[in-house]
Structure formats: C-alpha cells, structure tokens
C-alpha cells in the first residue's frame, strides 16, 4: 500500500498531470488526422520526454498512444478513412453505421469500449506483470539472449506480408547497433574515424526518421485531395450507451482479453489485435451476416481489442525489457535514455515507478471519455485541415526535436538518411517496425550472447543446457524453420496431388 501511495504521489504532480493532458491532446490530434499513426505521434513526443521525469515521460507516451488509437476511429466513422492502422479492421462498420444516421451509436460505442478495453488491459498488466517478474528474476544471460531473439523473430513473422523482407529489416536494425564502441571490448566498429559515431547511432533520430520522416515522404507521393468538412457529432453519443454496452458485454470482454493477450506477444500490436478480434467476434456472432453493414457488435468486439493490446504490450516490456510492438520499442528506448533498464529488477528497485505506470494507464484510459467527447465534437475541424499546413509543421517538429535531444547536427544527417532509407524500404515491402525493434534489442541480444559465450567458453551447447533457456531456444528455432518447412511440405503435397490427376488425363487421351 505504501508503494501505491508513493506511486500516486509521483503521478499527482503538476508536471505529470499536465504532460498527460498535453500528450492526450496531441494523441487525439494525430490519431484523428488520417495518414498519421499512433507510432508517429509517440516518435514525435520522444524529444519532449527527454526533458521530463521518467513518470511524466511514460505518462505522456501512454496517454498519447491510448488517445491516438481511439481517435483513429473518428475519421473512420466520418469519412471511411482510418485515422490509424489500428482502426482499419472495423472502419467499414463505423462508416456504415454513420451512413444509416447512427453516428452517435458508432462513435459512442467505439469510445466506451476503448475505455473498457484499456482498463481490462491495465488490470491484466497489474496482475500478470509482477508474477512474471518473479519468474524472470531466475533468468540468466542465456534466457535473456533467447528471449530477445524470440521477440525479434516473432516480430518478423507478423510485421508484414513478406517474412523474408521483415527479417532483412530486422537485420538492418541489428547492424545499426553494431556501429559505435563494442560492448565487451570497447573497440570501435564501423565508425570510420568519426567521433560522432563512437556513441552509436542516435536512437531518437532513427525512431523519428523511421516513423515520422518516412511517413511525410510517403504522404508526399500521394495526391492532395481536399477532404472537406464532415458531419457533426456531439454529446448525444453517450445517450443509451449503458444499454448498448450491456447488450454487447460478451464481445467487449472477449475483445478486451484477446487484445491484451495479442498485445503481449512480441511484435503483434494494436492493429493485428483489432483484425483478429474482428474475425473472432464474427465467428462467434449469432448474426454474422450483419457484419459489414454497420453492426455495433463488431465495433464492440474489435475496438475494445486495440486499446487493450496497448496495455498488453507493456507486459513483456516491463517484465523482460522486450518490447511488444513499435510503441513499446520507443518506450524501452526512452527508459534506457533515462538510465532505467526495463526488466524484472525494476519491480524490486523502482516498484513505485511500475505502480505509477499502472496508475497512468488507468488515468489515460478514463481520460478518453471527456477528451474523446471534445475530439469527436471538434474532430471535423481537424479533418478539414489542409496538408500544406500540417506536413511542413510536422517536418519542422521532426528537425527541431531530433536536434534538441543532443544538440547535435550529426543526428540530423542520421534523421535524413534513415527517413529516406525507411521510405524506400517501405515502398518495397520492407516493414519499418522490425528495424526499430532490432535497434532497441540489438544491444541486449549481443551483450547477452557475448556474456554467455564467455561463460560457456565458446561452447554453443551451453545455450540449451538450462531448462527455460533450452525451451526458449527450441521455440526460437521453431519460429525460424517451422513456417518455411510447412510451406515446403504443402508444396510437395500439392505436387503429389496434381501428379496422379495429370497421369489420369494422359491415360484418358
């Protein structure tokens, strides 16, 4: 109880409360703007968090990401354009419901289930994280090496349609971590005599470059059609919500729990959670034929999952220091910059910080109601904002934000290079998220690998000798080789099936 009160004291300060409010407002703005993602909102916040206390920094990120994921539903309902990828799964339901004159029901349901999903996710985080942390305390470098590698391997599985290209993107992130002084020997690698590279590549410059600059460049290739002012929605969206929520209680609870579990899986974020929850909700629905025509049950089942996934992704982040998605990869980066190593020891050394994160999560999700109402009322004005006013301002924020963190001109070269590189990569189906995950986790992988190698005196079998390490090792290898093996077997089977048919046709002729 003392720890909880200390955590409450940490949260109830002017600095934390004001940054949570500002982070929320910023998240709502970015989320409601089509084309800008929640990850971009968080990446743009990073330079600001550099000057804040750890609780205020995490508070701003949590509030910003929770708000932007919910706000992504607003343009989905009004214009049939998802504000963030996390809203894409049920956007057609939102818009179909609005087209039938039930904008109030569409946005009211999405707002309320986002709050419930977020709170359920927070509850699971509060209950599961300390238990898992106790197990994680037994981990040695072998387990951490495999766990980080497993997280990275899973990230390539779900990051995009092309697994091979996802792996290359991950390798690029790992390669970037090699630049600078070697962790074990202190010798410079790939620095080419440049002093600015000795400390390694700036994490902030890479994150802003990958998630914001690349996104501006991608938008620059598109056409600039004016969206126009969408219809208005107001306070009426709360009317009758309690009845609707009670009617759809099962899909909401199922979506919230499913979202939390999916969010906790390394690499799977809010968007994947929403797609899976939508499919599951349809599978268990008594009226699956109404899906796609503006079914409130579909919104209840999937809009709860994306906000729950956000909380769920903090489970591996806090417990193991392994980010669950690109947003938590940024969180790990921010914590490392603040001198805090996420992992089981945080639960012992800074329990008040962990509790403060729980409180901030609950607060951010509850704030969705008042701030969400404001965003829904004013969202139509944000949607009418011209690209010529929006993108130059974001570009300036990227430049000054990157420069501000280290006062380094060299970071700007990194920003321009990574932004252009990721833009080219994404245009060729190489996803950006594994690159950032690789950069954040690369040092953990190499450090634990080298320490294990020293302990084992180069004996690779030692990596499998401890029970948990062995299990994680086998799992990681299965993640690498099982999907191509299954593909190969399927190809053989289909060939075997077609061969007799051909023979029969030839015999007949």
């Amino acid at each position, binding site marked *: 109880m003392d720890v909880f009160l200390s955590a409450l004291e940490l949260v109830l300060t002017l600095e934390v409360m004001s940054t949570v409010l500002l982070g929320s407002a910023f998240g709502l703005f970015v989320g409601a703007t089509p084309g800008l993602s929640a990850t971009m909102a968080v990446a743009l916040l990073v330079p600001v968090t550099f000057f804040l206390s750890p609780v205020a920094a995490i508070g701003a990120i949590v509030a910003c990401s929770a708000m932007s994921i919910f706000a992504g539903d607003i343009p989905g309902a009004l214009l049939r354009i998802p504000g963030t990828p996390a809203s894409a799964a049920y956007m057609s339901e939102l818009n179909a419901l609005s087209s039938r004159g039930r904008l109030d029901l569409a946005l009211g349901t999405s707002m309320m289930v986002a709050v419930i999903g977020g709170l359920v996710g927070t509850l699971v985080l509060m209950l599961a994280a300390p238990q898992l942390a106790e197990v994680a305390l037994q981990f040695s470098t072998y387990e951490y090496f495999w766990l980080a590698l497993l997280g990275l391997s899973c990230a390539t599985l779900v990051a995009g349609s092309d697994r091979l290209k996802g792996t290359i993107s991950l390798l690029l992130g790992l390669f970037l971590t090699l630049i600078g002084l*070697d962790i074990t020997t202190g010798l410079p690698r*790939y620095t080419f005599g440049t002093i600015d590279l000795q400390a390694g590549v700036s994490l902030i410059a890479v994150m802003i470059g990958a998630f914001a600059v690349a996104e501006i460049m991608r938008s*620059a290739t598109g056409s600039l059609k004016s969206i126009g002012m969408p219809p208005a929605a107001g306070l009426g969206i709360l009317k009758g919500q309690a009845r609707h929520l009670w009617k759809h209680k099962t899909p909401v609870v199922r979506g919230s729990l499913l979202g939390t579990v999916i969010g906790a899986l390394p690499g799977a974020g809010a968007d994947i959670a929403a797609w899976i929850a939508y499919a599951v909700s349809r599978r268990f629905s008594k009226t699956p034929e109404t899906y796609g025509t503006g079914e409130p049950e579909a919104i209840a089942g999937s809009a709860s999952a994306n906000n729950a996934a956000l909380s769920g992704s903090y489970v591996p982040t806090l417990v193991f220091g392994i980010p669950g998605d690109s947003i938590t990869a940024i969180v790990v980066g921010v914590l490392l910059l603040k001198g805090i190593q996420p992992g089981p020891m945080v639960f012992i050394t800074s329990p008040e910080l962990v509790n403060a994160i729980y409180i901030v999560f609950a607060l951010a999700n509850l704030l969705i109601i008042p701030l969400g109402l404001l965003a829904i009322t004013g969202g139509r004005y944000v949607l009418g904002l011209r690209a010529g*006013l929006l993108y*130059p301002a974001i570009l300036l924020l990227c430049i000054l934000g990157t420069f501000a963190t280290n006062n380094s*001109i060299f970071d700007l070269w990194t920003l321009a290079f990574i932004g252009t590189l990721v833009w080219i990569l994404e*245009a060729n189906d190489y996803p950006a998220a594994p690159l950032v995950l690789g950069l954040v986790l690369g040092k953990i992988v190499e450090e634990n690998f080298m320490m294990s190698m020293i302990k084992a005196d180069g004996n690779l079998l030692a990596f499998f000798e401890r029970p948990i390490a062995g299990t994680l090792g086998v799992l990681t290898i299965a993640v690498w080789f099982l999907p191509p093996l299954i593909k190969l077997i399927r190809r053989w089977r289909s060939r075997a099936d077609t061969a007799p048919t051909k023979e029969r046709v030839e015999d007949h002729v």
Partner: protein
Amino acid sequence: MRLPDLWTGLAIVALGLFAILQAQGFPEPAGAASPRLFPRIIGAAFVICGLAVASRDFTRGRAALIPPGETWMRHPKQIARVAFVPFAIIAYGLLAPIAGSLAVSLVLVFISALLWNERPLGAILSALIVCIAVTLFFTRVMRVPLPAGPLDLF
C-alpha cells in the same frame, strides 16, 4: 520508390559483404569475446537473405532489371515535394548554425507549404505562426539552446 527485388536483394548482399570485410579488420582479443563475431553473423545473414530476395527476380529475365514507373514520378511538383523532405533536414543542419534556427525554419516551412499546394499568402502566414510557436516551445518551455544566428530574436 518501387525497385525490383533484384536491386534491393543485391544491395543487401553488398551490405553483408561490406559488414564481413570490415569486421576482418577489427582487433581480436584472446577468448570467446571477439568483436568480429556478431558483425560476421549479421553480415552472413544479410548475404543469405539478400540472395533469397534477389533470386525471386532471377527467372523474370530482363524485365526484372527495370524499376516499374509510379504515378507520382510523372509530376515534377510531387518529386520536388518528396525530395524536399531530406533536403530540408540537411539544409537546416548546414544553415541554422550560420543564419539561426528561426530564419532557416521560416524559409524551409514556407517552401514546404508552397510545395504542398498552399497559396503564397497562406504559406507565409502558416510559416510565421508555426515557426514562432515551435521555436518558442523549444527555447522557452524545453530550454533547448537552438542556434540563435545574427538576429538572436528568442
């Protein structure tokens, strides 16, 4: 910018070979903790994955060597809009220490707004409002010493 898999695959192979060759030059202390080990693993993985990506285009013949044209590439303004993003970042890095952050930001945001189809008057107004607000936020709220330049307004 859509490129053939052959190009991107071979670029990855080249990066892998570069990583391995560079690693050969790293000093190697006694014991298992060699600074060459991890770069070699990453480099080898680059070569294998790069070849796998490039091989997708091996059977496509000459067509694989030509990048497919994209709609935005036919419009000079869209090309300028894309190219201006990295250009603006580099220009800020080169010019801000000499002319000051605010002056350079104003010019860059103004040009950028014009490229995003904003009218000159709207571009000037938005550049003034955005640049002054963002500069004040960084210098006063976050206390970041941005390059002041000869005018030293904020």
